[in-house]
């Protein structure tokens, strides 16, 4: 049972020099769940995301995706001496496993970014079309001589379908960066969907959105989750969104997990309230 989590993070520590951004953090996500990771600014949420997508190599710890280890590391070299996280010896005897971000995406984890990162020189349509490159079956020569017509057509049709989901089909030839902010967010999400992920990572999808847009986004996330049979892992500050859509919530502060549970438990958790409001030392 425990082997079949979609995502399983074990004792993850990310340390940069003397700064421990994420400390001995463990969590898991099961198939079909929407799990949120929340915490005050600088708590290490995005760092955890970057470790999952292999942008960073963990300092210590292990990450499994559908039972397969996608990243595993233990402190080496100078880090051995200055390592300040928990469980320093847990993975020493096991081989280090590392991947590049594109390999992780090919395995089925796709993400969006906190500060929107659309391809600025491309149209809305091209943004979604381009990322389907990773599932191509043609090689360089068949593609260069345009002998992969069927595949190309299929890519384009899929792009249109995805654009229709968010109602961007009429804006397909606009430059992606000329869209309004909220639409750019949606475009980034469907661009992530175009890579056929099983696990979707959303990094503050509602940042900069008004309450109305946030509500729509919540409905949208639940909608695509059902439609594409996704598992969703979301970082968010908007509590309306988090409490509304999450099955479970993890809370971290200063890199350490301080709470875990269903939304109602988190809302009443004293440690969480302290972390957000300042707690005793006020």
């Amino acid at each position, binding site marked *: 049972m425990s082997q079949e989590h979609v995502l399983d993070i074990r004792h993850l520590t990310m340390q940069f020099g003397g700064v421990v951004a994420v400390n001995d953090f463990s969590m898991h996500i099961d198939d079909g769940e929407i799990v949120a990771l929340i915490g005050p600014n600088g708590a290490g949420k995005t760092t955890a995301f970057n470790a999952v997508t292999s942008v960073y190599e963990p300092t210590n710890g292990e990450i499994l995706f559908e039972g397969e280890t996608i990243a595993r590391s233990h402190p080496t070299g100078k880090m051995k001496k200055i390592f300040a996280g928990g469980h320093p010896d847990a993975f020493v005897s096991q081989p280090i496993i590392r991947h590049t*971000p594109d390999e992780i995406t090919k395995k089925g984890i796709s993400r969006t970014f906190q500060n929107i990162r659309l391809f600025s020189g491309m149209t809305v349509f091209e943004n979604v079309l381009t990322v389907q490159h*990773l599932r191509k079956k043609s090689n360089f020569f068949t593609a260069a001589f345009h002998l992969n017509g069927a595949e190309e057509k299929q890519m384009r049709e899929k792009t249109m379908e995805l654009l229709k989901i968010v109602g961007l089909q009429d804006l397909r030839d606009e430059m992606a960066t000329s869209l309004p902010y909220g639409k750019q967010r949606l475009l980034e999400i469907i661009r992530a969907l175009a890579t056929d992920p099983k696990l979707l990572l959303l990094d503050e999808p509602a940042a900069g959105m008004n309450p109305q847009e946030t509500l729509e986004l919540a409905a949208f996330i639940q909608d695509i989750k059902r439609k594409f049979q996704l598992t969703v892992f979301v970082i968010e500050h908007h509590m309306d969104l988090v409490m509304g859509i999450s099955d479970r919530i993890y809370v971290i502060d200063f890199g350490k997990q301080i709470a875990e549970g269903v939304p109602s438990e988190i809302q009443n958790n004293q440690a969480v309230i302290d972390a957000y409001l300042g707690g005793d030392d006020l």
Partner: protein
Amino acid sequence: MKEKKLTLANVASALIVLCLYVAVFIAEQKLPATSMLFTVLKKGATYALVAVSMNLLNGFTGIFSLGQAGFMLIGAYVYAIFTIPLEQRVNVYQYYAGGVVQFTLPVFVAMLLAGLVAAFFAFLIGLPVLRLKSDYLAIATLGFAEIIRAIFQWNQLGPVTNGSNMLRLFPTFNDFNIRNADGNVTVYLSTLVPLLVAGVCIALIVMIINSTYGRALRSIKDDEVAAEAMGINLAHHKRLAFCVSSFFTGIGGAMLAMYQTTVQAKSFTSAMTYEILLIVVIGGVGSVTGSCISAFLFVAASEWWLRFLDEKQMIGNWEVPLLRNGFRLVVFSIIIMIVVLFFRRGIMGTKELPDLFRRKKKAGGELK
């Protein structure tokens, strides 16, 4: 409906290109073969090809490489070495007993080989160099070009490269002319063939740019982090772009050898790379059409239209001041500064030839 309009723009562009080719063919039969126009067209075709392949790298993939002269040198040498007629080798390799290569390849096979060898070198260089970014990559590739130039002049390699002596007597553009039994030219093709070769190569580059691989390269230029997160293998695609670009640069080098009729390593200086870079910038970084147009404009200006600046000119009895040898380059620099200051996106920006037809229609469509 939309798709149909797009094809219409493409057809119009193809027609324009076809008309240009026909015009060149007719002009070549009518005008004297020594006309400056043909010199410009031949060199322009060469530079257009090299500029477009540089644009593939700098404008579409965002890899700032300055190794063009090095890859052109490789292409030019490979072409020359394998096409010098056997009976001439004793004369060319006079200090090296006729050299070691004792066979010749057909012209087009040798050109292809020139590209392949350049691409192979690019692969080797790319392994360490492509880990670098922006300026550092530029410096490393510039260094590579300088090193290659030195190596090809090395005496020990003389039996292959003829050391620092020039390679000559290989087939040139003039050998494309069709002659009758008396040796008189019946059909002039010496300008049309290089233009066709360049045209085919550029068409291939355009096809690559418009394929799924081309889109992947453009995404790398736009945002490396996002491209990688969307499953595009950066190392693989950068290496691919580098090799493909060098392949076509190598073919461009072979064409330059044919244009110059001799090849000597010391002429492939970094100044040549800067000329190409200039063409790319003036034409518009990220526009194939722009690179082609500006290649011909650049060559025409430097070889033909601005030549008068290098000589003393008299208006009546008054001698125009400043005109002397080298003044052309001053004027050129000023033009470049004007372009950089006021036309930062170049002649074409990132637009292509079909876009010029498309824009009007799109505006009309929006009105409805």
